[in-house]
């Protein structure tokens, strides 16, 4: 009825934190880091220390006070998306809206065999692994040795070694060295057109294949489209996806100052009439200067009438990348029964 923990937190949900697990230390939506739980480790932030030993056995999602009691963190389960948010930005990461949409349009699901190049921070690799596990496989390629080594270690620490194979390789020069093997390909490369020939060979010959090229600039898109077309890819489509986050707040409903209120003698108008009647010192035409904020004296504000309003956040992400998708039709027609 409940899932059992396999090696590595990332492979499946568990109920409680165990030694060796990756834990997301969540303080606020903007303050998210990750911890690998060791027997005698301690996580520290400005509010004090959080011993790893006290984390073990706690339910995921628990609120944990610091030793000093001054602050707390939430111990969150490392979904690929939270893990991505917790990364120090080593390289440009893929954002969740793109990851989600690419996953949908490449028809990723358990069992899919797939290529990714480059691996980068491994952020999308984790998402892919989550979606194609337990029966699919990801072949991911990274040009930078540093990043390759870091990602390779992470995949195995996270229990994804049997789902992900990573290679250190410049695919634009050396290709993938794979043929008739995969259902889907994702290319996040500065010059994806150099890898498209090799990509075509890697697709299963009797299946329909889907590819996505991720490029920030329009010039790259134009070149990619030309190359895709020349290689016989069809249904070339290009999209942009963005998320618009909203802020929500309650505002006081202010009723309009009633005409003729001055006559009926509300406090503000009363005050003004008296001032006017006196005509002593403050007799500038137009009268008293009131600050722009102080509306209370002249208005009837019915109390407690609130309206919940929302509006998009002031500054939002305006662009991540253009997502160019294409289909490769079966290169061998399957034999009909």
């Amino acid at each position, binding site marked *: *009825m*409940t*899932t059992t923990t396999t090696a590595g937190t990332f492979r*499946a*949900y568990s*109920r409680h934190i165990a030694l060796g697990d990756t834990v997301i230390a969540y303080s606020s*939506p903007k303050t998210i880091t990750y911890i690998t739980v060791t027997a005698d480790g301690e996580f520290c932030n400005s509010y004090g220390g959080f011993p790893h030993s006290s984390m073990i056995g*706690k*339910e*995921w*999602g*628990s*609120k*944990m006070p610091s030793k000093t009691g001054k602050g707390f963190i*939430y111990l*969150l*389960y490392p*979904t*690929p998306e939270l893990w991505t948010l917790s990364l120090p930005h080593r390289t440009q990461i893929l954002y*969740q809206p793109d*990851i*989600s*949409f690419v*996953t*949908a*349009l490449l*028809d990723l*699901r*358990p*069992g899919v065999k797939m290529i990714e190049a480059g691996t980068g921070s491994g952020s999308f690799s984790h*998402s892919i692994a*989550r*979606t194609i*596990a*337990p*029966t699919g496989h990801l072949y991911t390629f990274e040009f930078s040795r540093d990043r390759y080594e870091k990602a390779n270690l992470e995949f195995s620490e996270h229990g994804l070694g049997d789902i992900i194979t990573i290679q250190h390789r410049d695919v634009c020069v050396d290709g993938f060295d794979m043929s008739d093997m995969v*259902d889907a390909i994702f290319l996040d490369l500065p010059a994806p057109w150099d890898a498209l020939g090799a990509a075509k060979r890697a697709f299963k010959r009797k*299946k*329909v294949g889907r590819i996505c090229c991720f490029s920030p600039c329009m010039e790259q*898109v134009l070149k990619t*489209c*030309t190359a895709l*077309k020349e290689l*016989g890819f*069809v249904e*070339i*489509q*290009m*999209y*942009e996806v963005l*998320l*618009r986050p*909203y802020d*929500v707040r309650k505002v006081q409903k202010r009723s309009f100052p009633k005409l003729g209120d001055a006559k009926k003698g509300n406090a503000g108008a009363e005050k003004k009439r008296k001032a006017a009647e006196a005509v002593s010192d403050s007799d500038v035409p137009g009268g008293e200067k009131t600050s722009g904020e102080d509306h209370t004296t002249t208005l009837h504000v019915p109390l407690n009438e609130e309206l*919940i309003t929302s509006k998009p956040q002031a500054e939002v992400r305006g662009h991540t990348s253009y997502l160019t998708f294409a289909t490769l*039709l*079966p290169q061998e*027609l399957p034999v*009909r*029964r």
Partner: protein
Amino acid sequence: MVEMAEKMEVDTPETTQSETPEGVPNLPSALDIPDIVDDGAIIAENSWAIVQMPSDNTKLVQFKANSVVNLGKFGSFHAKDLFGYPFDMPYEVYGDKQVRPASMNIYALDAFDLETEEGTTNKDLVDRREAQKLSQVEIEQMKADSLKGQVPVENLIKTIVENSETFDKKTEFSKAKYIKRKQKKFSKVFTPRRPSARGLCEHFFKDNPRRICELRVDTLSQILTTGNVRSGARYLIVDEAGGLLTCALVERMQGRGEILQLHDHETNNVDLIKHLNLPPSIHNVLKSLPWTRLTPNDDEDMENMLIRTTDETRLDRLRHRILTTRAKRALLYAGGFDGLFIISQYDIKEIIETLSPYLAGSRPVVVYSPYKETMLESFLHLRNSRDFVNAQLTESWIREYQLPTAASGTHPLMRMSGSGGYILSAIRVIDCETHAATARRVRVKNGKVAEVKSTGEEGVEQEHA
């Protein structure tokens, strides 16, 4: 290929959900399902397909053994002629209701001799009718030949374009539009797409958006990621989008894990799932419980029930129904679910308050609505609650482009979808100051308290009257 195709059977959730009628039913959980990614790629008898026509409109069709599939003005064909062929590639109708894989040349059409000529403008072409050198009779003859399969469609179109006197004077944009128009008129090429949650979403978003609560494909994709949907997990779901979200979950779980659906009425309306061409075993992940049975009803009180029948088969069915309901309720109360997904016309806040106690710690709640206003109060509730962190309210935005491959300039499509709906999400947390470390008291609406032990891997339900 053939074997795979033969294994395929279409089955609706109604028939697959019936359990063995003896004793307390074991809620089946399918753990060792073979990899079905490849199986579904071949068209088989009774397969559903989303047929994409030359007009780019789509149609949801079931390929029955004896049926003739009618694509309207684009012709019709015998469904069985496609059995054993792959989904997702182009086929061509020809002759007398016949069908065959289309020539790949159809895709080359939109680019042929359309080199860019920036100088040409459309200034002097406005309002001028097209001039065609071929007579109507000649065109009709070619159409007939094409239909019989003697002239490939792309040749027909090419001939017509080459005989257009105005074609050369058109701008690139007009040229592309002209060819597209001719394609739509003469081509009989269609693509039977394998139904997927994505395909169904795209189809219904165009065809009947209300059926799926106007849920757009990019928004659906965000829901799945935000909800960390994966094979082997256990989800709670309220799906009033015709079952589209359920389809998406089932597809990403591929027979591993568990989905408990809460719904109105006695039966659950997740109609769309039948289109997925899934083997029956896949449906075993699905269980459903009506809202009205979250607490025991009088009609489950078999001892005090007025029973008018003595038919043992019927009594067995009654017993089985009652026991199944109890088992499903126990499943809910056991809690520890890995995600809560909500698409509902009801007050979202009430649903969250009712179901979130059954979510395990650090698991997401994800709500979709086409109307932002219906979620604002819930957003404030989640943001201020001690039981949730990271409350977010977002709207997905998507833009598709016309590409240079269409032989005219690159720009976003002139028409776009205005809205794909809004997503509200948050992560369930355990505030140790209010929840005991080992057991947490769950307040159920009617005043009962269910105590859920969460020390072991198994949630144990202990109901107190």
